[in-house]
């Protein structure tokens, strides 16, 4: 049985596909988008997070850590990531929820059992299960095993993907997935590389492959103010979508938010877009109208 490192299985998710959904977050991502809202899902390995505001400075974590990775820092602590061996003794010891475990290795059977429990809500709302992350298609065999069993129960399956995976990953899951939410971050490959660490050619190729395979795809654009919302990007993206034919007719804009920022601090890493304002709804709307004027059915995720 396949396994994967899962950070969260979140019920009543209402912004991740049709109906009420459960989102399974898998750890590990091949991209490093500077705006990423789920930094805890970038690394494939389990990690410990430290939420400073919940720490009461009791010191139980320091006493519990076998490697001395908890450094006392005045009334509070920080984690010496070099020394941390990822055993989570500190998180076990913490009473106040200040030390959290990001990621737990689960079998496909365990994930299936948890994800199917909300079937009553999927049935009433036309919802289902969504694999997200991280990049869930870094674990295609795992996704396939879970999805097959869910579909046997009549539960619809969605995969949210960045597209930057080998084509074989799509081929592995294709017949067990009802639809894909597919991120198109930039039409411009150089800028894509600049902001995500990788060029976009494979992503565009996979998009075309997926559409040509007859899969149902909702393309999505995380809309980062001043980064990928200019007219040139919009026109190029619309052009690409239209080149896909009917399968590329729909685009959803995902307005930028900063809710992930606290998690960067928890992981002891730097957030590279701190000065960016959250999206102004009026600007988002004008981008939406621009796409519409270019012949793309465009909606805004709320």
């Amino acid at each position: 049985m396949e396994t994967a490192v899962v950070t969260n299985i979140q019920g009543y998710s209402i912004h991740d596909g049709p109906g009420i959904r459960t989102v399974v977050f898998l750890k590990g991502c091949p991209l490093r988008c500077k705006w990423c809202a789920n930094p805890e899902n970038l690394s494939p390995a389990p990690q410990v997070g430290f939420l400073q505001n919940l720490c009461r400075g009791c010191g139980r974590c320091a006493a519990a850590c076998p490697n001395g990775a908890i450094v006392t820092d005045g009334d509070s602590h920080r984690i010496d990531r070099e020394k941390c061996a990822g055993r989570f003794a500190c998180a076990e010891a913490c009473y106040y929820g200040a030390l959290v475990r990001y990621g737990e290795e689960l079998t496909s059977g365990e994930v299936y059992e948890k994800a199917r429990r909300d079937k009553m809500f999927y049935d009433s709302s036309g919802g289902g299960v969504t694999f997200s992350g991280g990049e869930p298609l870094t674990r295609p065999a795992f996704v396939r095993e879970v999805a097959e069993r869910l579909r046997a129960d009549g539960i619809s399956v969605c995969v949210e993907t960045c597209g930057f995976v080998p084509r074989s990953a799509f081929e592995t899951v294709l017949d067990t997935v009802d639809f894909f939410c597919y991120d198109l971050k930039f039409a411009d490959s150089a800028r894509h590389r600049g902001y995500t660490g990788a060029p976009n050619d494979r992503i565009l190729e996979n998009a075309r492959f997926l559409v040509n395979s007859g899969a149902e795809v909702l393309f999505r654009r995380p809309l980062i103010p001043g980064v990928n919302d200019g007219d040139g990007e919009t026109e190029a993206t619309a052009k690409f979508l239209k080149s896909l034919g009917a399968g590329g007719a729909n685009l959803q804009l995902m307005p930028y938010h900063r809710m992930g920022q606290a998690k960067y601090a928890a992981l002891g890493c730097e957030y590279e877009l701190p000065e960016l304002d959250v999206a102004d709804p009026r600007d988002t709307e004008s981008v939406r109208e621009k796409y519409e004027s270019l012949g793309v059915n465009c909606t805004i995720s709320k």
Partner: protein
Amino acid sequence: MAATVDNSLCGRIDALDLSARNKAWHRAMKAAPWRVCADREKWTVQSWRETEGEDLQLRRAKLLACVLDNLEINIHPFDEIVGRPTPFVIGCATAIDVNGDYIPGLLSDGEVALTLDASTTLDDASRDILRESIGVFAGKTMREATERAWESLVGTWARDAEAAKLKDPSLDAAITGQSTSTLSWSKILRVGLRGYIDECQTRIADFIAREDADVSKIYFWQSAVIVLEAVIRHARRYAALAHELASAETDAAQKAHLLKIAEVSEYVPENPARNFHEALQSMQFCNLGKMLENPAQNNCHWGRSDQYLYPFFARDLANGIPLETLASQFADLIGRWGTQTFVTGESQRESHQINFGISSIMVGGLGQDNEDKSNELSYLTLHLIALLKLSSPTVCLRWNKKTPNWLMNKAIRTNLETKGGIPLFENDEVVIGNYVKDGIPFNEAVEWASLGCVYPCLPTRAEQYGAEGIAAFNLAGLLHLVLHNGVDINGKQTGLQTGDPRGFTSVDEIYGALLAQHKYFSHRIFWLGAVARNVQSDYYRTPLLSILGIEASMELGQDLLIPHPDYSLYGMSDRAIIDAADSLTALNELVFKQKKLTLGELLDALDSDFAGERGEELRQLCLRQPKYGNDIPEADELVRRLSEDSAKIIRDYDNAPFRRFMISREGLAWHYFGGLGVGALPNGRRALEPLNDGSLSPMRGADKNGPTAVIRSACAANYSGVSYASVLNQKFSSSILGSDESIDKLVAYTNAYMAADGSHIQYNIIDSAELKDAKANPENYQDLIVRIGGFSAYFVQLSPSIQDDVIFRSEFSL
């Protein structure tokens, strides 16, 4: 009806605002000082002296007639409908004849508390009237007589159990004489009070012709005639006043309005209503009579108004009466009934935390043909509720598998508009199914209405629930007794001696001791109830409530305060099951399964209220044990087991010759009150802190797996199999309702729970930040409504600890 809903009418309703009159009332109501009036007392004393030595049934009827004939009345310029129990916009009458000198502060400084933070000062003349009334009635009311009878049966036990918050304090809170929820509105509107009077006269004549035996029936019918005629005369007094005001009125439109009021008040409630205006006015006069008959229990309940008023509404619209006119009249009466105050005792203010008398209104639900009966008036009701933004009435949507999505969608939007809780959703099929299981025919069961929070009742049967004044008890408190060998929080041996708690060797032994305490306790409470019922009818009667409230009273010729083997229903609320079950789960884990602690260590920690560093460490350990609300099968299973065992003890009590007790686990704000009787618990709750709100909500802050896990736990607990009602509160951030699509998803979520036999759910749709700000700056949040276990309340009027509770409840930010 669902299939043929008039979408264009619903669209016109969506565009409606409150009328100018409604807005003028709203302003006046907000600005009005709350008044307590002694006027009624003057006439009760006069009448009681005049009727000395007569039959009790007739005396009570004459007392009400004297009040209705003499009470000072008033018509306000913004009134669409007329009739209030006092001349003021917000006011209530005292009722020393019902409950004795229960009004705290009455004889000292004249400052009378109305709610937790509202009080009024009586003038010297009023205090003189009240003193005189006390001289006549004190010591001779049923409340006082009941307490004497209890004392003779169980000594100080009733008082002790109440002081330890182990049973409901309702008697001292003046809940007496309550026996039904909603008047027989359909019949009242169909036959008019003259129809009732004629039927009484016929029955009296038949009785005499047949030479029947039980002469007390004659007294009942005579008493009914007396009060019904008095209500008609009272309405005519308003007609006369309207005429008088009209003749002095210079504004032509207002003059016409007053003349219309006069015409309507002349015609109803004596005659059958012919249109929407007459129907509402007829209802108000009847309700006014009911309120003045027993001001201590003056709840104004609509029942299924979207059903019995619909023909009037539809006919008027077809006849060209503007929708705005009908809406204005409807909003007037909803607002009037929702802002009726009453004089309360201290413990009722603590345990209920309500500002106004409980009014409740139903929308939707199944009909006699088992089809859903939602209509455009249901839709208008929700719309007006959102516009009025009042904490009362409680609005209950009777959910069933055929409830149309257009009504559900409006209901969720109304939740968003009112910031939550309005309407609440209650499962029609669960309630009806429970009644049918209890031997009530479907045609009666299907007409159920809620009594205030979520407690269902039947308009056709007398509800002896409140009359006992003892109708709830505290399972967390019983666990406290088990852990202290029957000694309560005040150090008294209120419970059974179930043995030295340190000697228990398994969780099963503790569980057994809990059930033993339960039986000991609940049976004593049932005895007290039986005593109260016996005493009640010797001291008190409610002829108007009987004749207009329970249709069977007419045939039986019997006041509904006299219990009847078939027509009286009995209810009990066994509360804090989740607290007790989570505590047993934690205790079992820590002491018997993981063996991290000895029982002695745990009990010491509890008795010290988790004092010191070690205490806090143990408390955190307790908090981390499995909790109900997270879809953890072992935790949920114990809730289900305790729920069923508790229900079995109650159901097994032989209440002969009367019906067995029904169980209804409503919540109110009781968890705060109940918590004051419970020491620290193994679930990690500190001593005296509030218990879990609602009867089916998880421990606050303990539901860590999201809202759907709470629902799955609630389904696993399966209260619906044993209880008519159970309260599940969920708090959502308003961000979850940012789009039409997300509103549809909350509809689907609600449908899913209800379709899985969930019996009740209500939503708080509020941001934590907003609540904290409201606590700090109450002046900016006067309109903010929150739900507390079944009731809506103004947030800023709650006590600080309840405010913290609302803020604390884990918010699902989605």
